[in-house]
């Protein structure tokens, strides 16, 4: 791989990472040596001259952030008081809210798709949390919503969740205890 292709691979990985990534993890992920990764990071830094992004590192942990001079625009976008969640994340959140306590496998069986990423995002936002482990084979984590969730949605308690009539006419307003 050339310096540029390594820089591109690093950029893609750092772009999706929601936390700083160490150089050794980068090296492992893209299958390159430590020296090549270092050179790639230097190249990436050069690419970002004059763009809206910056490469930032704390110790050996690297991440992409927005350029400081773009802060007003970023603030203008994020400033509006509304929760920004992708449709997928909102759907996963609704499963946790209405069905807690619920395990990852249960969430996925309800949504029918892999939910690793959205669970991670919701945890990062502190909208859901691990409640503990279920006494079941594999001792899976159970997830539930947080007080930040209640605050974010302006709910006094989980009982205040809007009542939803499921398509077959069953009321499912309250969190249903899972068997």
């Amino acid at each position: 791989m050339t310096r540029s292709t390594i820089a591109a691979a690093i950029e893609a990985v750092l772009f999706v990472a929601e936390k700083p990534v160490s150089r050794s993890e980068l090296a492992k992920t893209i299958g390159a040596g430590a020296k090549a990764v270092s050179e790639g990071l230097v190249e990436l830094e050069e690419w970002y001259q004059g763009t809206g992004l910056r490469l930032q590192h704390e110790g050996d942990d690297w991440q992409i952030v927005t350029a400081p001079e773009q802060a007003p625009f970023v603030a203008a976008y994020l400033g509006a008081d509304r929760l920004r969640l992708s449709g997928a994340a909102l759907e996963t959140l609704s499963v946790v809210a209405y069905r807690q306590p619920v395990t990852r496998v249960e969430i996925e069986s309800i949504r029918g798709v892999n939910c690793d990423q959205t669970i991670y995002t919701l945890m990062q936002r502190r909208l859901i949390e691990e409640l503990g482990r279920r006494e079941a084979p594999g001792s899976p984590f159970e997830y539930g919503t947080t007080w930040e969730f209640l605050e974010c949605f302006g709910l006094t308690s989980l009982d205040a969740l809007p009542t939803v009539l499921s398509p077959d006419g069953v009321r499912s307003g309250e969190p249903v205890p899972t068997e």
Partner: protein
Amino acid sequence: MPSGPRPPEVTVDGFEGPLDLLLELVEDKKLDIFTVRLGDLADEYLVRVRAMATLPADEVSAFLYIASRLVLLKARSLLPSLVPPSDDDEVDTEAELRLRLIEYATTKDRAAALGDRMRAGERAFHREGGSVILPPKGGDPDALAAAWLKVLALTRETPEEVEVPGERYSVEQRTAEIEALIAKQPSVTFVTLLGERPTLGYAIVTFISLLDLYRRLVIDITQDELFGEIRIERKVQRMEELPE
């Protein structure tokens, strides 16, 4: 779908439907989709349908529809005087079916192109967003409820819970049944064959079986008046001079 050679006959697992079957016939015989006389494929089509071990009950009507179209086209080409085009638009039956077949062929090619991309795995990824403001603000409970409703709607019938059609009929089996019956008695009505409370699937398999028996010159089918009783009669002797 595996990229290997297609299996010689359509199985329930691999079948994509009646148009797929028809397209496969055209391609197997290396015919030109633009010029092939679709009625000529009626026999082969029925043979293939008959070869299916079982037909999913909810799909038989789709197969029957195409089968009846093909049989009609064939009948008309064999006996133009006996099967006159009843309406002007019936002249277009073949053209219309051909158009559908061409469109389906295009769809298949496009699906293959998308499938190639999917298997190549060259996909993009978005990021879920960086600046985490804690605690987040402005959640809309109604949006959450709407998302839940959507999830519920999509959960209603997860693949595991989908009611597998309990009834599966084999055209071959039904054909044998009717053939045995007609060997014993010279004629039987369609209503009798259907029994008291036929399901749609049972009725259609029965119908396809009759088409097949008719094609093989085992039976004659008569109907004296429109919507009148359909009578199935044992063919007295094979009339070899009839075109195949």
